[in-house]
């Protein structure tokens, strides 16, 4: 069930009516759990078995982490269970295919069939959210949740279940321990967030996807300009798609009196790669920072050790996004870029470079990495990069209207991050922006609702 469909409008209307009626009773958490399971089961009821199983294991592990002598074992049990689930459903095909290739290279006469396993939607998100709970309980950063219904509702909370933000137990569970507070301002804030998310997804992302798909479906027939603009289109598409989803998720949460974290903070206005990763998919970046990078040693130790920690964390992050070499290379490239620029960013001359130039440099480096993220294969990605630098030119077939819209959003974001920000806060500007966004939505929203990109992760 996608947020921008009538099915969801009907679902949410019923959910809210009952939720408000029950919020002063003890039943509201059970209602939240039931509707979250209904929402998840809408894709495929079989997925429910997996989420219920995962929830139960981590709930049990959480309880045992409180009073058992075998705390480490219970933590390991929780982690192995979650990672095994992820590995089996998401990566089994990747490992089987690579093993088969390896056997062929080594002339070993063994066939490894590709396991046709259905990837449960959102598995990467809810396993990470659930895992963060057991780790935090182990580290004594969060109280053990003894109420199973509440814990299950935390793992499966429907607004952010399938594509984040990946909330931490310490931020979300306390909100679920008391009656939800829904003020008028929460409703208006929620609607504002939802409408902006709707614009990002249904207008911008879906529009850009048509151009990116056209170019990337057969990159061999395009010259460097088309490939460059196809990559720009994808860079903005994935931003609008994913941040649009999380805006809608945050809006829905806000209307229910639940605050979800900011997940995207205008990442294409970043002035260095570190800044970019503090603005892009913030909930995942901070998850990896807290549970992978810091345990590996983080910024402690010699310079090369720090670099190694960074590279490893970002490669794993790339692999989290998808079971393909293109995602691993994407993570690796981002890591290398980050390592290479860490020292540069500290230099006196880098600080002298105008902000806009830095922003454009960061954007173009990120675009370079998106080529691997979007391309169907490593060979396609290499071909695109080769064309970029060979300057084959050609007709870019640039849709001027589309890129003008992107340009306007980018200018808005630059203004928002500048001293001119107060100008955007005038009532007439805010209302005008929303009316403009709605007009574009009415005109450009496609007759077919498209899935969100991050659902596949």
């Amino acid at each position, binding site marked *: 069930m996608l947020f921008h*469909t*009538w*099915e969801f409008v*009907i679902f949410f209307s019923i959910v809210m009516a009952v939720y408000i009626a029950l919020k002063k009773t003890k039943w509201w958490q059970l209602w939240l759990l039931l509707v979250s399971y209904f929402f998840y089961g809408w894709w495929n009821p079989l997925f429910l078995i997996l989420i219920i199983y995962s929830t139960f294991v981590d709930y049990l592990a959480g309880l045992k982490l409180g009073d058992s002598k075998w705390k480490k074992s219970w933590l390991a049990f929780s982690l192995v269970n979650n990672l095994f689930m992820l590995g089996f459903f998401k990566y089994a095909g990747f490992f089987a295919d690579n093993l088969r290739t390896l056997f062929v290279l080594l002339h070993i006469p063994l066939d490894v069939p590709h396991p046709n396993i259905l990837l449960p939607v959102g598995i990467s998100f809810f396993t990470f959210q659930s895992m963060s709970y057991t780790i935090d309980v182990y580290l004594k950063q969060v109280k053990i949740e003894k109420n199973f219904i509440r814990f299950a509702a935390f793992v499966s909370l429907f607004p952010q279940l399938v594509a984040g933000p990946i909330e931490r137990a310490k931020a979300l569970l306390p909100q679920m321990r008391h009656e939800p507070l829904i003020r*008028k*301002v929460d*409703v*208006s*804030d929620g*609607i*504002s*967030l939802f*409408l*902006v998310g709707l614009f990002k997804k249904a207008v911008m992302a*879906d*529009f850009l996807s*048509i*151009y990116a798909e*056209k170019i990337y479906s057969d990159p061999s027939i395009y010259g460097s300009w088309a490939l460059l603009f196809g990559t720009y289109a994808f860079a903005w598409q994935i931003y609008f798609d994913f*941040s649009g989803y999380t*805006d809608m998720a*945050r809006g829905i949460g806000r209307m229910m009196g639940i*605050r979800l*974290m*900011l997940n*995207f*903070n*205008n990442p294409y206005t970043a002035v260095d790669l570190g800044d970019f990763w503090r603005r892009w998919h913030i909930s995942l970046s901070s998850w990896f920072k807290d549970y992978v990078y810091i345990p590996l040693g983080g910024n402690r130790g010699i310079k090369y050790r720090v670099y190694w920690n960074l590279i490893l964390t970002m490669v794993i992050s790339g692999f989290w996004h998808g079971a393909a070499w293109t995602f691993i290379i994407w993570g690796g490239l981002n890591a290398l870029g980050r390592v290479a620029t860490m020292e540069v960013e500290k230099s006196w001359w880098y600080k002298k470079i105008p902000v806009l130039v830095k922003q454009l440099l960061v954007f173009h480096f990120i675009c370079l990495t998106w080529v691997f993220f979007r391309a169907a294969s490593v060979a396609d990605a290499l071909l695109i990069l080769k064309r970029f630098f060979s300057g084959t030119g050609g007709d870019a*077939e*640039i*849709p*001027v*209207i*589309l890129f003008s819209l992107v340009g306007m959003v980018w200018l*808005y*974001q630059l203004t*928002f991050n500048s001293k001119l*920000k107060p100008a*955007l*806060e005038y*009532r007439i*500007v*805010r*209302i005008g*922006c*929303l*009316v403009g*966004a*709605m*007009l574009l939505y*009415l*005109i*450009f929203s*496609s*007759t077919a*609702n498209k899935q969100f990109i991050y659902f596949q992760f």
Partner: protein
Amino acid sequence: MNKKKKVRHFSSNAIRLSGRELLIAGAITFLGLMIAVPWLWQKKETVTLDKDFRLAYNYRDDYWTFKKCADEVCRKYPVVFLGDSVIWGMYVDNNHTIPAWLNQKLGTEAAGNLAIDGMHYVAMEGLLKYYGSAIHNKKVFLYFNPLWLNSSKFDLSDNAAMDIHHPRLLPQFSPALKCYREPLSKRMSVLMERNLPFYSLLNHLRLTFFDNEDFNRWIIEHPEESPLTKISFSVDPCEHNHNDSSMTWKMSGITAQDWNWVPLDESKQWAAFNNVLELLKSRNNQVFVLVGSINPFILTKNSLDKYNQLRADICAGLKKENTPFFLLPELPSGSYADASHPLSCGYEQIAATLLQSPDFVKYINQGDGK
């Protein structure tokens, strides 16, 4: 020591509106764009009707244009002809349809053609309900094509999912059509189109100027064209590309058909046809029904017997409701292009036959229909 306060961001933009501001934005969007824009557009847009007008085949799904044309046709002609491709004239030029032949034989511009290809009666009920309000206080000549009752599939009483002509005119929720299987989102968008003229206008623009494509897809496919230069306030909805065919059903190699025919009391199309009659009468129209003739030469003996019984039942039904009608006799074999469409000579014979009917002549001559 200064402890840095952790700031929880509301959002990465300033579009945070209070309840009152949301209401203002909603009102501007709704009143300004959803109501005022289509109203102004409709005032500014002009359609020109040629002699022997019929709605162009490409406009058959553009109900905004149908509405505009209905206005014009009702203004220009005393009698409005409604029906499917038989009245529209599938195999003939504009000047060889039934209304065109009647005009020629009467020597006056009496009959206007508002038929649309594929307009079965379940869809026609929707067409007239939502887009046909201009047809009131008129003489309406309504064609009943028994072909829509030849099987449960055509009758829409089948349970199996299938593609249906004019799905945007069908009842979306009630009464339920089991063969119409569309997701909720699509059904809701149809309801929006019917009730908010802005959506109808968007569909009209897509169909008329943008090759029936979504605007964003059209822009990607035509990167160097401005969509604004494609749009015009002057629309030519007349058919220009249809010529007479001389190919009879025998030449086309149509073989014998053993249609079962749906009994009238079980037929959804017949029920819808009666609703159409009721709707037209409630709008103070004088309705005359022409009960069409299927090509009897393609029917098996068994099917022909059932068909004749069906025709008798149809006439009885119309008589019971005091609806004036004319039962079209069968045409010579060489006048049919297929199972139901006549060739040009067939249409001429129908017009001549009609003008020999005292009921029809009386109907044509009474009042001016304006």
